[in-house]
């Protein structure tokens, strides 16, 4: 098993006639994903670079392919909210947002809408989702990297960083640990699905035996995962790699990213995250190479 996507997940790509969207659609299909169509308003009737039908709207795409359940939103940041709203309105329950620099004001609305429509949104700034050997979505593992970096297995990988999703998966694969699913949740101030949301999916998945997370300073998503481990919502072993300890030694008022603009109330630093996770029973890695070593202790 895996979470979110497998070889039977019928997908569309919104923004398929753009550079990122077109490339992602072709690479997804090449990996075995069931990509059925693309959507670009005004380009309906065309055929995408990879030979897929292009529709003007999600509505028309779903009329033609009612089995579509997932959309990769590969449109530029200013158009993301409209594309996501359209996907939700026409019944798509799983959405992955590729674009970076989506305004937080748009993300917070998408979070509320996802709850209302009982849908799952991964992103913004998500590198994508891969269930190795089955399907991938987004730009994760492009140019044939997918087959050397990722392999099927028992480890769920959740990362705020796209590059580190792959680096960690490669280290795991090299050490003989495959992944059930690996995904980037994005490193924005607010993301639509946080560590707990995704870890809860892994918790339900029979194949996943352990969860690896890559976290960064800022926000409280890592601390929330620690809380979920404390209250037994998450019971599977967790190995965490948290970046940004150096920031604790910077002069006060130095803000990396947007850490200063969100409620933290004493949390949010690398040390706070590491302590919270350690107290909740997570094993803390200092480098990607530590992760397989720590996994052998819990599996």
């Amino acid at each position, binding site marked *: 098993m895996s979470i979110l996507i497998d070889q039977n997940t019928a997908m569309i790509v919104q923004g398929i006639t753009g550079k990122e969207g077109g*490339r992602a659609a072709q690479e997804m299909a090449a990996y075995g994903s069931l990509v059925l169509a693309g959507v670009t308003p005004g380009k309906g009737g065309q055929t995408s670079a990879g030979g897929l039908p292009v529709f003007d709207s999600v509505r028309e795409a779903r009329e033609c392919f009612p089995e579509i359940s997932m959309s990769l939103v590969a449109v530029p*940041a200013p158009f993301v909210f409209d594309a996501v709203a359209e996907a939700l309105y026409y019944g798509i329950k799983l959405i992955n947002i590729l674009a*970076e*620099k*989506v*305004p*937080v*004001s748009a993300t*917070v609305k998408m*979070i*509320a809408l996802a709850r*209302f429509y009982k849908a799952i949104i991964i992103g913004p700034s998500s590198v*994508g989702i891969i269930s190795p050997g089955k399907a991938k979505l987004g*730009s994760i*593992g*492009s*140019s044939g*990297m997918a087959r050397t970096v990722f392999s099927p297995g028992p480890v769920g990988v959740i*990362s705020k*960083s*796209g*590059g*580190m*999703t*792959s*680096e960690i*998966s*490669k280290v795991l694969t090299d050490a003989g640990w495959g992944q059930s699913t690996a995904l980037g949740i994005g*490193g924005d*101030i*607010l993301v639509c699905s*946080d560590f707990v949301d995704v870890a809860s999916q892994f918790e339900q998945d029979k194949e996943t035996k352990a969860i690896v997370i*890559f976290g*960064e*300073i800022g926000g*409280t*998503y890592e601390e*929330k995962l620690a809380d979920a481990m404390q209250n037994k919502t998450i019971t599977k072993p967790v190995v965490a790699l948290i*970046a*940004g*300890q*150096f920031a604790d030694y910077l*002069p*006060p008022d*130095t*803000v*990396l*990213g*947007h850490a*200063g*603009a*969100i*409620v*933290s*109330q*004493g949390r949010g630093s690398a040390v706070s995250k590491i302590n919270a996770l350690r107290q909740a029973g997570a094993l803390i890695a*200092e*480098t*990607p*190479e530590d992760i397989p070593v720590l996994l052998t202790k819990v599996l």
Partner: protein
Amino acid sequence: MKLLEHEGKKILARYGVTVPVSALVQADTMSVVLPYPLVLKSQVPVGNRKQAGGIVMVEQAEQFVPSRDKLFQTNINGHLPQCLLAEALIKAQAEHYVSFCYNTDTQSPALMLNKDGGTGISQARIFSVDILLGVENFFVRNALAQAGMPTSAELIAVIKKLWNIFSAERALLVEINPLFQTEAGEFIAGDAKIILDDAVVDPIARSFLNLAGDIGILASGGGASMLNIDILARAGGRAANYVEYSGNPPASIVKELTRTVLSKPNLRGCWVIGGTANFTDIYETMLGFAEGLRELQPKPTFPIVVRRDGPRQAEAFAMLRQVAADEGYNLHLFGPEISMAESARKLLLLINKV
């Protein structure tokens, strides 16, 4: 983007929040048309200005120029002001804390309140905003009551105006601290801290930070960047900078960043570090790096360690090898056969050999 106090107060005033009568003071401003005593405030983008000597009371007109000069020379956490704000003194009966920001715990905006101003976000009470409902009277009334603050129509109006700013300006933080309450029951913003969303106002902004060390770092992606500064520190090295270029940057951007990072004086090494890229064109990235290197004067002699993997890596490394041979750079290339941490140790060994 963090606004200065006077910029923030302009926005507050535009949305109908009362701010003190004020005048902007330049280095050559000789006087202001305000009643004395007045308050003179250094316009720097940092908190705790009062403790750092950035806010002074000016009792009478004769003290204006010396106070002005002193403030322009007072460095506050690394910042010297470009201008000062002179404001009428407000007689306050109470000082409160109010702000709107985002909360990752609840995945929503939050109203933060404290009946005692001067405190920060870390001590305020948090009230989650349901984005579908917005900020209605009932919500503000209940929050104020729970925070022990007056539930007057005037204060409710101020908070709803703050919410208007937060949502219409798509801000990340709108904070008034202190919010003065006068004897007449008026509310006046004593300070303004507004952070706008870079995704809205400056979408091509790149995060760059000077650090105290002597190893220039070009890391791809924010995550790898932060992690590798930690890894370098553990190996005994010190990063000269934090920078991130994420996504699939064109060569021109990498070239510019290379020049920025490596033109810092007294560098002892350069570390081009990244994990296994998903879609970043490594050749394009390294082309930008090579072009940036070539433009550096004097020509760098310190060791350069590159550790990177991803699409078109082989082509990229062949090109770099040629450039290094032509220019005589002390360049060392590694792929995924060694870890990021190991490449840090190799760089430090090379530096210590020099």
